[in-house]
């Protein structure tokens, strides 16, 4: 590649997004890698675990030692079939693994065991829901099985690859099962391209989470995205040259990377330049990409069928049994629940954003009304969790506890305020709500003697209020409730207080 030309192209100012879209139509393509949450690796029985001491989750297979034999993880294969089905793919009746040869220290074998011309799943589609509810269909080319690579740390002067003195390798991640999902070229996205990109990756994450085949934590690299972008002049019929931005690993970053690449390509093409087919690095801090390396004969991976592994044959019975295990698709489930619960769009969006859909569904399933379930999870539980720096779902509140608490409120045993205190005591490990109420003596004071005494005291101390009430201003009773609550440590029932005041004044009837 002519580096002078590259430098010149990099110096071209990107167009604004709107200008870019006036002249060009974007075409996108995504390669999403999903790390599976199996207990063991793809081809060895070493643990698939995150965050352990370096090189302690490996055995002789992961280290590519001579004479070792890989063995396929059956659960990983079933996960791949399930994902293929969830993406509306055809499942291959017969498929094989292949060796993808390259020399780089992240793989000790000098090849990555992958699938090449025989992916386990192919020709699918995914209907992606955009922010306004519109559905955009993304066609899926294939989903294939492969293994992850080890993790390199580049030591030395710069910390980046360039200029590093040496690299340190941890092979704990080597051999972790991966499924790579490749889309067909996505056309017709127009100005919604960045939004579609984000929604697509988000939908993939939801699906693998729903299938429970991946932890789906993007910040840990469980779901990783490479974004391909090219532009066609409006009216053109041939795709332009694409760039591939590697490892765009958050939903927001995917949206920004696509936006930036559209603007960058448009700038270069409008200035009469041409796009170099190359990989690009995403830079989170500046929200831009930088040149990686051009496509070249280095991409000659000399694939051949893996002789150490036998083919996989899928029967209709097997595939249909796995299909029967599939959960309801996430987008469909969300639509169903929103309608069933009667939440407003904003309310529902907040629930999704808080990640409390499962909790609320379960709470409703235990007998709480959707409104009550939402009130507790989005209210007090979220507040407590936030104060303690944990996720609401991780606070340890069981749906049945919410139902019990609500029963105590509806039965008049406690009021809302006391119920919130009971919840906090519950989170602190004091047991079931009813026990907490009993042990701490938190029942609403409803025995007339104690309550009447408290009301009489409040009336004696506030004669002016009593006069107003006598004069027919029933709202003034509110001013007596505070003192009564104080006297009863908050355990009085406001309705009951009002009743007693009116009785005492002979105004009940």
């Amino acid at each position, binding site marked *: 590649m002519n580096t002078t030309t590259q430098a010149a192209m990099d110096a071209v100012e990107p167009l604004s997004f709107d200008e870019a879209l006036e002249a060009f139509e974007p075409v996108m393509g995504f390669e999403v*890698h999903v790390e599976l949450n*199996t*207990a*063991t690796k793809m081809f060895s*029985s*070493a*643990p698939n675990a995150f965050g352990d*001491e*370096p*090189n*302690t*989750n490996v*055995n*002789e297979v992961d*280290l590519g030692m001579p004479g070792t034999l890989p063995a*396929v*993880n*059956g*659960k990983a294969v079933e996960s791949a079939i399930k994902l293929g089905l969830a993406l509306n793919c055809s499942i291959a009746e*017969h498929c*094989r693994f292949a060796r993808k*040869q*390259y*020399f*780089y*220290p*992240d*793989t000790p074998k000098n090849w*990555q065991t992958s699938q090449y011309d025989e992916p386990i799943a192919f020709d699918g589609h995914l209907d992606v829901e955009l922010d306004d509810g519109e559905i955009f269909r993304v066609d899926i080319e294939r989903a294939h099985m492969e293994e*992850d*690579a080890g*993790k*390199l740390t580049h030591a*030395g002067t710069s910390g980046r*690859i360039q200029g*590093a003195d*040496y*690299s*340190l*390798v*941890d*092979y704990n*991640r080597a051999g972790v099962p991966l499924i790579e999902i490749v889309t067909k070229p996505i056309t017709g996205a127009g100005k919604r391209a960045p939004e579609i990109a984000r929604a697509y990756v988000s939908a993939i994450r939801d699906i693998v989470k729903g299938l429970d085949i991946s932890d789906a934590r993007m910040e840990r690299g469980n779901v*990783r995205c490479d974004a391909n972008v090219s532009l066609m002049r409006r009216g053109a019929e041939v795709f332009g040259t694409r760039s591939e931005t*590697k*490892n765009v690993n958050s939903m927001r970053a995917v949206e920004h990377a696509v936006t930036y690449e559209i603007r960058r390509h448009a700038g270069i093409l409008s200035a009469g330049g041409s796009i170099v087919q190359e*990989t690009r690095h995403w830079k989170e801090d500046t929200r831009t990409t930088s*040149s*990686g*390396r051009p496509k070249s*004969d*280095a991409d*000659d991976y000399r694939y051949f*069928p*893996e*002789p150490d*592994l*036998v*083919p*996989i044959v899928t029967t209709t019975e097997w595939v249909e049994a796995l299909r029967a295990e599939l959960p309801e698709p996430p987008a469909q489930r969300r639509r169903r629940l929103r309608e069933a619960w009667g939440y407003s769009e904003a309310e529902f969006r907040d629930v999704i954003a808080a990640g409390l859909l499962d909790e609320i569904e379960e709470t409703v399933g235990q007998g709480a009304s959707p409104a009550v379930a939402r009130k507790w999870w989005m209210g007090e539980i979220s507040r407590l969790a936030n104060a303690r720096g944990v996720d609401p779902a991780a606070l340890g509140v069981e749906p049945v506890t919410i139902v019990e608490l609500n029963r105590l409120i509806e039965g008049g045993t406690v009021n809302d305020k006391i119920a919130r205190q009971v919840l906090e005591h519950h989170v602190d490990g004091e047991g079931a709500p009813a026990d907490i109420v009993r042990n701490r003596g938190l029942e609403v004071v409803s025995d007339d003697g104690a309550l009447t005494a408290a009301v009489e005291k409040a009336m004696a101390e506030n004669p002016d209020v009593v006069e107003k009430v006598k004069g027919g201003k029933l709202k003034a009773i509110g001013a007596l409730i505070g003192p009564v609550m104080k006297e009863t440590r908050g355990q009085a029932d406001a309705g009951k207080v009002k009743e007693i005041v009116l009785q005492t004044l002979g105004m009940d009837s």
Partner: protein
Amino acid sequence: MSEISRADVEHLATLAHIAMTDAELEKMASELAVIVDSVKRVQEAAGEDVPATSHPLPLTNVFREDIVGHVFTAEESLASAPDAEDSRFKVPAILSEDHDAGPSSVPHEGGER
């Protein structure tokens, strides 16, 4: 005889990161041609109706249960490493991304993050 050119061998050597002298390249080109010719005979024996095979045994679906087996300690993992640091394998510097066209510069699947 099959034509394996010197340029073919040079390309393969680059991909495999093997430094070869001119003499070695010439020698290897002719030797590889002989090897390819020998293997080619299989094509003569196998007709159109014989599917390509990657395994000598008529086996399919050999799967392992997803149960954790034995695992190395860091010391065992690194026992035969030429060099190590911080419980990790120490390897030579990665060549500069934009000068070397070989796969050594490829941040492969999740390699760099």
